[in-house]
């Protein structure tokens, strides 16, 4: 008799689990407020992006046009597909010593997969992921960007 019992419990548990699934989809069907699809081109002004959305890498500059990048190339080494190229220069400190500093932070947006590894690798939190996403341009060369502003320099006290 064991197999008949198993057969019947199989049928009932199958029906029960299928009804459970139908209950959930039925709930979604009747509750349109659950829909989180953004009506993108129409709601451009009120668009809300999730906090963790990753659009592109930008460098943080403060009001004195100073950044926190020491030119250590940790981000360049962390990048899996050579998106970042750091060009360094040597500054002369007031004591007359030579010190390595950032000259140009080259960022190839066309190669970037938004994996966030460079941001995690950065020891001074100089770069972050921005929420911009309208990246289409007519020429590929426009996707190669310099992230440090012209004339910017490293903030005092960051080693």
């Amino acid at each position, binding site marked *: 008799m064991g197999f008949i019992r198993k057969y019947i419990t199989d049928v009932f548990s199958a029906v029960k689990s299928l009804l459970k699934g139908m209950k959930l*989809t039925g709930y*979604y069907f009747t509750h349109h407020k659950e*829909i989180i*699809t953004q009506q993108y081109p129409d709601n451009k002004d009120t668009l809300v992006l999730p906090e963790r959305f990753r659009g592109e890498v930008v460098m943080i500059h403060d009001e004195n046009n100073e950044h926190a990048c020491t030119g250590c190339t940790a981000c360049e080494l962390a990048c899996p597909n050579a998106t970042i190229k750091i060009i360094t220069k040597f500054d002369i400190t007031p004591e007359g010593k030579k010190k390595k500093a950032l000259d140009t932070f080259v960022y190839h947006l066309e190669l970037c997969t938004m994996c966030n590894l460079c941001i995690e690798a950065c020891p001074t939190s100089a770069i972050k992921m921005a929420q911009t996403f309208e990246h289409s341009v007519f020429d590929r060369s426009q996707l190669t960007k310099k992230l440090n502003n012209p004339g910017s320099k490293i903030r005092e006290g960051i080693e």
Partner: protein
Amino acid sequence: MGFGFENITASIHNWLYNTFNPSIALLIEFILVAICIITLFSLLGLVLIMMERKVSAWMQVRLGPNRVGPKGMFQTVADTLKLIIKEGMTPDGADKFLFNLAPFIVMIVAMVLMAPIMFAKGFQIWDINIGILFFASVSSVSVIGILMAGWASNNKYSLLGAMRSGAQIVSYELSAGLAILTVIVLTGSLRISDIIESQQNGWWIFKGHIPVIIAFIIFLIAVTAETNRAPFDMAEAESELTAGFHTEYSGMKFALFFLAEYVNIFIVCAVGATLFLGGWMPLHIGNWQGFNHVMDYIPSSIWFFGKTFFLIFVIMWFRWTFPRLRIDQLLNLEWKYLLPISMVNLLLATVIAIAGWHF
């Protein structure tokens, strides 16, 4: 009801036979019926595809088509226009005659199946005395069209999809037939109008106790499989066979397969509504005279289409909820579960019918 379809069809019939001689009148009636059916087909295609896309979107917490026309209403019209403009290619290695014939076979089967369906009180193309048998036998011809398409395409995916579809339809017809038989046993007639008349004092799903409810569930499962819809979409199997039997079809020939799929859903749901939910019969509860009178004021065509579209919605609900089955699981479900259960169920229903225990 003063404005029922019954009076319209009767007056057209009388006028034709009084004005012309009988053979010409019959010919004109044929043409009128053909025009009605083709109009119904195109309307059903547009409405059901739109409904499927909206239902699927809402069940998956999406918005669905909302760009073409108000609330996306004309999306399917635009899609149809696109399909008409596209070229209907015939592959080089295909069996050209069978390849071009197959979509029409599938379509003609769907059209023939419309004959015994009663759309409203007294509004039926052909009230034959074997109505349900006609439905059960003609609906299995569509598998020939699918096999023809799969074979003639000269494509391994098409052939695999077609063979699977053959195995599936042959299996599931058994339990669909037994579920239909359960109601036939209680009714004692195969004629559609008799089946509907027998539900005057209550639909079979309420009158027939548990056996009819079980038969109704088995019928729904079996017709979902027979119309090749997910979770039983072995014939198309997008994830394994690209598009199954209609991989090689394009343009209007593909559209005919697509349209036939949706019209078949309508037909099986109409038959389900006729057998279990009383066709065009309004909902009557026992001796509540007032309630029954109010229900009588709703036209019979609205009752019929309401029930049919409710069943179509349930089948769409199945599609967008359940995971797909493998071919072996599919045949297991039929031969190990549905068939034994429906046989026992038929026996129960027969006992109830003989003993007269139904209401």
